[in-house]
């Protein structure tokens, strides 16, 4: 019957329509309930966080003022000298930046070594003993859940001021974060080479060397580079608690209201972080390229 419309019987239509209304109403109710929970949480958080909107409104002009004071006096006619005055302490800052990079480097390196040794004990496919797996997984979890700055605070007390507590704090946190990622990589390997190595009588170390390492090396390196990127950012604030690097200068500049120093150091940190990001990204892309090549 071309042309004729197939009509739904009215009682069925009514039934479908009421079901639709009910479904929409239920969804609306859920949304309203969720929103009111969120609003209540915001209200409570506002009280706990001592938010005072009136005070905020009356002091709102401080933000642009602060930003304005961060900008140094630069003029076109005297640009070179102004710039030199802005970055007056450049030598010291560059030295400290180099220290910061070394802290991040050593922290990452120690973290990689530690994570490499622990990760095989935390995998379901290479570690048959459940208790060992459990203990190593909890250990990694502990290392990555305690913030690195807390470790740094503790280590500054134990080792004294300087870069060493910073390196160790970064290393411990990196062990936890990288160990988890490494273990996930190892759990996703092709098990046939492992079975092959075991079948020819290889012991555990030989199995890992010849059957596991070739499969995971590029992924491990890629994660290590990514961690280095993150650690550079963190190393820049390690100085806040006395654990070395550029952070020490920055905290002094901020606390003592040396506005132009703050902006100069911040710019240096941002530039360093961006350069490191670019370089490691290039390296990682090349690594993935090597991986893809047969």
């Amino acid at each position, binding site marked *: 019957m071309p042309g004729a419309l197939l009509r739904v019987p009215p009682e069925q239509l009514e039934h479908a329509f009421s079901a639709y209304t009910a479904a929409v109403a239920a969804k609306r109710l859920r949304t309203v309930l969720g929103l009111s929970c969120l609003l209540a949480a915001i209200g409570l958080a*506002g009280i706990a*966080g*001592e938010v005072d909107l009136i005070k905020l409104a009356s002091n709102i002009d401080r933000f642009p003022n602060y930003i304005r004071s961060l900008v140094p006096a630069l003029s076109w006619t005297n640009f070179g000298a102004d710039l030199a005055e802005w970055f007056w302490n450049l030598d010291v800052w560059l030295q400290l930046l180099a220290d910061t990079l*070394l802290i991040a480097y050593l922290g990452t*390196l120690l973290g990689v070594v530690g994570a490499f040794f622990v990760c095989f004990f935390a995998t379901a496919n290479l570690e048959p003993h459940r208790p060992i797996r459990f203990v190593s997984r909890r250990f990694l979890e502990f290392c990555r*859940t305690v*913030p690195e700055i807390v470790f740094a605070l503790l280590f500054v007390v134990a080792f004294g001021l300087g870069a060493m507590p910073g390196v160790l704090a970064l290393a411990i946190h990196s062990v936890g974060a990288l160990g988890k990622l490494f273990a996930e990589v190892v759990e996703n390997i092709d098990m046939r080479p492992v079975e092959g190595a075991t079948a020819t*009588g290889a012991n555990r170390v030989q199995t890992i060397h010849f059957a596991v390492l070739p499969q995971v090396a590029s992924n491990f390196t890629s994660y290590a580079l990514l961690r280095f990127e993150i650690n550079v950012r963190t190393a820049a604030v390690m100085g806040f608690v006395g654990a070395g690097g550029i952070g020490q200068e920055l905290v002094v500049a*901020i606390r003592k209201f040396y506005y132009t120093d703050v902006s100069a150091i911040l710019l240096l940190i941002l530039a360093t972080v961006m350069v490191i990001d670019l370089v490691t990204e290039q390296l990682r892309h090349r690594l993935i390229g090597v991986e893809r090549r047969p």
Partner: protein
Amino acid sequence: MSQTLRDVALHDLQGLRARHGEVFAADWRRRTALLAGIILVLVLAAYGFWRLDFSLTRLGSGLGQIAHMVSLMFPPSPGGRLPLYLQALTETLAIALLGTLTAAVLAFPVGFLAAKNVVPNIFAHFAVRRVLDIFRGVDVLIWALIFINVVGLGPFAGILAITASDFGSFGKLFSEAIETADKRPVEGVIASGGTRLHALRFALIPQIFPVIASQVLYYFESNTRSATIIGIVGAGGIGLHLAEQIRVLEWNVVAFLVLMILVVVAIIDWVSSRLRFAIIGRAGVVL
């Protein structure tokens, strides 16, 4: 035949070497590259250890100190200030919640500005992205210090610090979510006579909302961690007490505070991952 394959192979090693020379031949170029890489890494490490004043005696005495500290940490005790610490912990959660939400609200419109398919002008979206990069590139502790200068010590500075650093991350993530949204629903709404605003409300937002909600929850999770440490520089929350107790060497209180933080972080992780799965489904967790 009690011989294993291994014994057979070992027995005929000379023959195997002669017949399959290319398998046994070392790839000298690869080996040199690897060796050079390892030497470079080690030399740089040695230079680093020397420049940063590492010494075994310092390491040894420090480890002894740590052992002593750990022995003093047991049993962990709140030192009779449990209500104060619980209040500080609530403050920490409040900082994380308000900071994350404010950042999300501020970043939502900016995410549209930074999305290629909404603002086709390449300069505009390039500029917006670089500004977001700057917000993201400054660590939350640095933001905290700066905001302490602007609004004074206290949790409010912490909220603003988390807002500032997450504003950059959210702007980037939201713009990516908007860029990957399917444009066919938008076309459908326009074709059935809807305005651009209708298309936004009925085609774009239903697509991006679950993604954005799960990202906000994930950041709330990670901000609970950040909020515990910004107190160290004076921006409110439990970190203030933690730094204080480390300074006065009250190790059992320190242990108690660290445990409290770990427990709260674990609870928040659990709750928020349940919520995230409820919103977006177990398969599609996008970070």
